C-alpha cells in the first residue's frame, strides 16, 4: 500500500531524513519508535505533504501513485489520514461543518455523491460514540478549548468519519491518560484493523502498543530505520532504551 524508498528530506535546509525505506502492506500495522529528534514527526509531515518539508531524494508510492507529487488534499482524497501530534485549533469553524465539507470534498474528488446533512450527522454520532467524545464537542469550534486528550480523541473521530485506507498517527498517545489511551487504542482497532487498511503508528512509548498490537516495529534514528522486528522489539526498547538498540 505504501512504499518508501531511500527518502531524504530537509526542513529549512537542514537534512532530517537520510535514506529512509519502508514498505507497508494492506492489513498491517507498523510502529515507528525512536528517540527525540530522530525524524519521526518529519516523516509524518513529509508523507502528509506539509509545506516546508522538502524531499531531496527518494520516493514514496501510495497505492501505485506518486505520493510526493500530490497536494495535501489530494493525498486525503486518495485515502491517507494524518493524525497530528498537536491538533490545530481553528476558532470559529465548527467541527461538524469542517468535517462534512472535508468528507464531501474527498467524495467529490473520488466521483462519489455528497453525503446529506442527516446521513453525515448519523455517521458523526456513531464515530463520536466509539471514541466516547460528547457530540456537543463536535458542534464546537475545531479543538478550541479542548483538553489534550479531547484533541486526540477528536483526531480519531475524524479518522472514523473520513475512513482512510492508511492512517499515519503521530504520537496520538501523547497527552492521554490511562483510560483515554484505552479508548483511543480501541478506536484505532475498530476503525483501522481491517484487511484493506493499514496503520503507521509513530510513538515514543510501548504503552499504546499494548492496545494496538503492531505487526512490525521499526526503530528510527538519525533519519533512517536502523532496526526492524516484530512486537517483541518494542518491549526490548522499553527495557534497554534507544541508546542501546540504535547504536
Amino acid at each position, binding site marked *: 500500500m505504501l512504499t518508501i524508498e531511500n527518502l531524504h528530506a530537509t526542513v529549512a535546509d537542514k537534512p532530517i531524513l537520510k535514506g529512509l525505506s519502508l514498505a507497508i502492506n494492506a492489513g498491517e500495522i507498523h510502529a515507528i519508535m525512536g528517540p527525540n529528534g530522530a525524524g519521526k514527526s518529519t516523516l509524518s509531515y513529509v508523507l*502528509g*505533504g*506539509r*509545506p516546508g518539508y522538502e524531499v531531496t531524494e527518494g520516493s514514496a508510492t501510495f497505492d501505485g501513485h506518486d505520493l510526493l507529487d500530490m*497536494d*495535501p*488534499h489530494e*493525498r*486525503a*482524497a486518495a485515502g491517507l489520514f*494524518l493524525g*497530528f501530534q498537536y*491538533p*490545530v*485549533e*481553528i*476558532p*470559529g*469553524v465548527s467541527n461538524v*461543518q*469542517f*468535517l462534512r*465539507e*472535508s*468528507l464531501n*470534498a*474527498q467524495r467529490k*474528488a473520488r466521483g462519489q455523491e455528497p453525503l446529506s446533512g442527516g446521513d453525515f450527522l448519523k455517521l458523526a454520532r456513531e464515530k463520536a460514540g466509539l471514541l466516547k467524545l460528547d457530540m456537543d464537542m463536535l458542534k464546537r*469550534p475545531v479543538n478550541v478549548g479542548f483538553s489534550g486528550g479531547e484533541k486526540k480523541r477528536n483526531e480519531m473521530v*475524524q479518522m472514523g468519519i*473520513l475512513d482512510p485506507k492508511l492512517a499515519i498517527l503521530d504520537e496520538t498517545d501523547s497527552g492521554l491518560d490511562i483510560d483515554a489511551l484505552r479508548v483511543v487504542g480501541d478506536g484505532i482497532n475498530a476503525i483501522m484493523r481491517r484487511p484493506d487498511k493499514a496503520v503507521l503508528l509513530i510513538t515514543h512509548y510501548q504503552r499504546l502498543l499494548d492496545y494496538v498490537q503492531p505487526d512490525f516495529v521499526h526503530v528510527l534514528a538519525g533519519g533512517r530505520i536502523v532496526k526492524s522486528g516484530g512486537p517483541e522489539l518494542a518491549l526490548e526498547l522499553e527495557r534497554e532504551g534507544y541508546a542501546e538498540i540504535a547504536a
Partner: protein
Amino acid sequence: MTATTHPTRRDEAWRYADIDAVTAAWPLPAPESIVVPAGGEFRRAIVQDAGAIHQIEMSIGKGATASLHILNIGGAYGRIELAVTLHEGADFTLGAAQIGGGEQNLEIVTTVTHAEPGATSRQMVRSVLSGTATGTYLGKVAVARDAQQTDSEQDVKAMLLDRSATANAKPELEIFADDVKCAHGCAIGELDAMGLYYLQSRGLPPGEAKKILLQAFVAGVFDGAEDEEQLQALALAKLGELV
C-alpha cells in the same frame, strides 16, 4: 475645507481615499439623516456593492438602541462614513465587514460621539483584502465632558491574503470625561499556515480551506443583523472570489 472644494489627502478623514473618485463624485449629496427617538429601536443593514460614497448622520435618543450592519464589497472605491451621536443611556452597535480584491479601495470612517452620560457603543470591523486592495477603518470616539460612564469599544481586525494588499486602521479617542471605558484593539495578519494545512490534510482543496477560515474570521460581525443570512451569503460569495 468648504463645501465647494473637495477634500484632499491632507484631510485626516480622507487620507487614504481615492481622491480621483471623490473628485468625480463631488459635490456629495447631503448625508442621510437618521433620528432614533428616545426609547426607540433601530436596525439597518447596508450593502455597498456599487462603488459609492455613503454618508450617514445618526442621532440616537435617550435610552434608544441602534445597530448598523455594513458589508462594504463593491466598486473601485467604496466609502461609508458615519457620524453618530449618542444621548443619555443610548446604545450603538456597528458590525462591518469589508472584503476587497484587485485594486479596490474600501473604507469605513466613523465618528461616534458620546454626548451624554451612560451611553454604550461597540464597533466591530473585519477586513479581508487581496491583490493590491486597500481597506481602511478610521474610527473616532469622542466623549463629551459630561458623558460619564461612557462604555465604548472598537474591535478592528484585518486579514491580508497577499503581501501586496494594505490595511489601515486608526482608532482616535477624544475624551473629556474622567469616568469612562474606551477599549480599542486592532490586529492585522495573514491566514494561519498551520490551520490551512490542517484543513487541507482532511481533504479540503486550498481555496475551500481558505474560504472556511475567512468565513470564520468575518463571522460574528453580522450577529443580530436584519437579514443576517443574506449578509453572510453575500460575504461568502465575495470571499469565494478572492481565494
